[in-house]
């Protein structure tokens, strides 16, 4: 009898060990490219092409070159403007549309919702051509507006916000209506504060999505002064030569804001994913 508890205890321990092993391998696989990126950014010359874990002579030369001899700071600023403005816009419009679809009854509501959802099914690559034609017609080529406009409102955000607004009981809205607030005030003062986690999650998804966006900003901006970080870094890759060490140094710097966002708000990311059943 005395052996029984020991045996029973051994089973969950084995399970735990297996879980941890798989998680560790997964975690390592995920973090390796980042480590490799950072290490490469400390290398110069031929050493860039070697697989050594640590450079013989680690140097910050690439970083200095990046800040002094390229437009990196401008690109960083551009990325920041694009990511912040689109995030604010998405938070405003997506929550407004999500709230309307959730709390109001009107004809064609379901159709509108399905139409918005169906935009999630279309890959960006397919949308690029119509976007480009629109941007060209509007004269927005090589402008911030041109880079930002496709991301100013997102179907995913509308869906996410609608799901979260479902959790706000109607009684709160009715109470506010009796208290004398108009519909816009009810949305802003009552409903919005109650979906804080959703707004945080959406803000993170949107910020990161726009911070790392490459295809559309590359297509719509030809002026190097308007490049975002990913497009600017790509310009280090020429037809005959690629400055991997500069790309890696730039990517390392560009990773910092995303890391900060992740570390500060990771619990909201998880909740946002769980609530929406989708990935940003």
């Amino acid at each position, binding site marked *: 009898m005395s052996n029984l508890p020991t045996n029973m205890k051994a089973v969950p321990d084995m399970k735990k060990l297996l879980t941890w092993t798989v998680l560790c391998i997964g975690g390592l696989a995920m973090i390796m490219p980042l480590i490799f990126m950072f290490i490469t950014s400390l290398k110069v010359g031929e050493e860039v092409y070697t697989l050594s874990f640590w450079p013989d002579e680690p140097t910050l030369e690439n970083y200095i070159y990046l800040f002094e001899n390229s437009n990196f700071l401008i690109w960083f600023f551009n990325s920041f403007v694009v990511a912040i403005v689109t995030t604010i816009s998405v938070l405003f419009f997506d929550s407004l549309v999500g709230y309307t679809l959730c709390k109001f009854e009107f004809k064609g509501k379901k159709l509108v919702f399905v139409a918005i959802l169906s935009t999630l099914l279309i890959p960006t690559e397919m949308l690029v051509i119509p976007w480009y034609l629109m941007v060209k017609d509007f004269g927005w080529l090589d402008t911030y507006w041109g880079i930002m406009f496709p991301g100013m409102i997102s179907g995913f955000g509308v869906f996410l916000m609608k799901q979260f607004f479902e959790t706000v*009981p109607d*009684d*709160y809205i*009715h*109470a*506010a*209506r*009796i*208290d*004398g*607030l108009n519909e816009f*005030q009810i949305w802003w003062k*009552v409903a919005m*504060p*109650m979906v*804080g986690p959703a707004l945080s999650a959406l803000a993170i998804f949107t910020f990161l999505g726009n911070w790392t966006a490459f295809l559309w900003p590359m297509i719509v901006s030809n002026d190097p002064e308007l490049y975002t970080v990913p497009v600017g870094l790509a310009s280090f890759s020429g037809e005959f030569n690629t400055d991997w060490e500069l790309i890696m140094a730039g990517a390392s710097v560009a990773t910092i804001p995303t890391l900060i966002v992740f570390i500060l708000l990771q619990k909201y990311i998880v909740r946002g994913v769980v609530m929406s059943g989708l990935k940003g």
Partner: protein
Amino acid sequence: MAQVLLKNIAKYYNKTKVIEELNLSIKDQEFVVLVGPSGCGKSTLLRMIAGLEEISDGELYIGDRLSNELEPKDRNIAMVFQNYALYPHLTVKDNISFGLRATKMDKQEIEKRVAHAADILGVTHLLDRKPSELSGGQSQRIAMGRAIVRQPEVFLFDEPLSNLDAKLRANMRVEIKKLHQRVKTTSIYVTHDQVEAMTLADRIVILKGGDIQQIGTPMDLYHTPANVFVATFIGNPPMNILNGTLTQNNDNSDENWCVKFSDTESLSFSIDKPLTTYQDKPVKLGVRPEDIRVLRNNEQPQSYERVFSVQATVIEPLGADTTIFTDIAGMEIKAITDGRHTIHLNDPLKIAIDTRHLHLFDAQTEERIFSTQVSVKVQN
């Protein structure tokens, strides 16, 4: 303060009628309780008065104003919700003053009103807390505070106590009654709990399927129910309903009428009303459990009591009282007896039905034919 008048009020959802031609007049300062089972339309009616649901047909007057088209904020009402609807991101003080701030009222006046309401409800020490730090009873008080500060003409309560446990509910019932006695604002209160209805109401409106079954004081409804539904809805345990046939006694006894439950079991009683239209027809006889007495050993019944020999099938001891389940002619009945009276399961018992307190209903329409009960006036 104001009276509320509902004239031919109707509510349709698409083509489904939820409430049809409902008329109700609520007097100034009156406390009216709308009560009924789930889906009877009581909450819909309250929300129509609040302006949260559109009125499909009819006229609603709050005070002297036709209010059908008025926005909720312009109806001069305040509502207490079932889940309290306290904004979680605001402090108690901000919750209470939320409506006043929305109307851009003078800050000093807001402070004064919040302090006064908090004082009435005994929540002054909670003003800086967030709703998540409050107990159910405290949340309930704050929700009432939010209603009080608006100094409305009419209070609307939508099942405000149903989220509380039994003990707290009983306490809050008293609080609400005290509050009404103090501020005397016209109040309309929705509940499915007949105890709340009985204890709080000046008048009760019983609803079923969107129709008013009866309007009256709690005692009127209890002692002279308009139909079987009201009779069985009000009272706990509910009134016993026994199916039988009404026959006239021809044996020159004092009891001129009799309800036959079976070939062997019947109950005779006297009444000075003509019942010939119902003679030899099926009827439903209603007897309240407290009007059925379990006789102790060798105890003799009173002259107005009719005795039946039965067996207890279920015994529910409640302390002060014990509810005995048994049957007459195969129909289950409940009787209430003194909690000190020891009775065992399947014991042969003699129960005595008090014929002074009988209710007779039409078997078809279930409408009341008569009640021998004399209603008792209770001053609230």
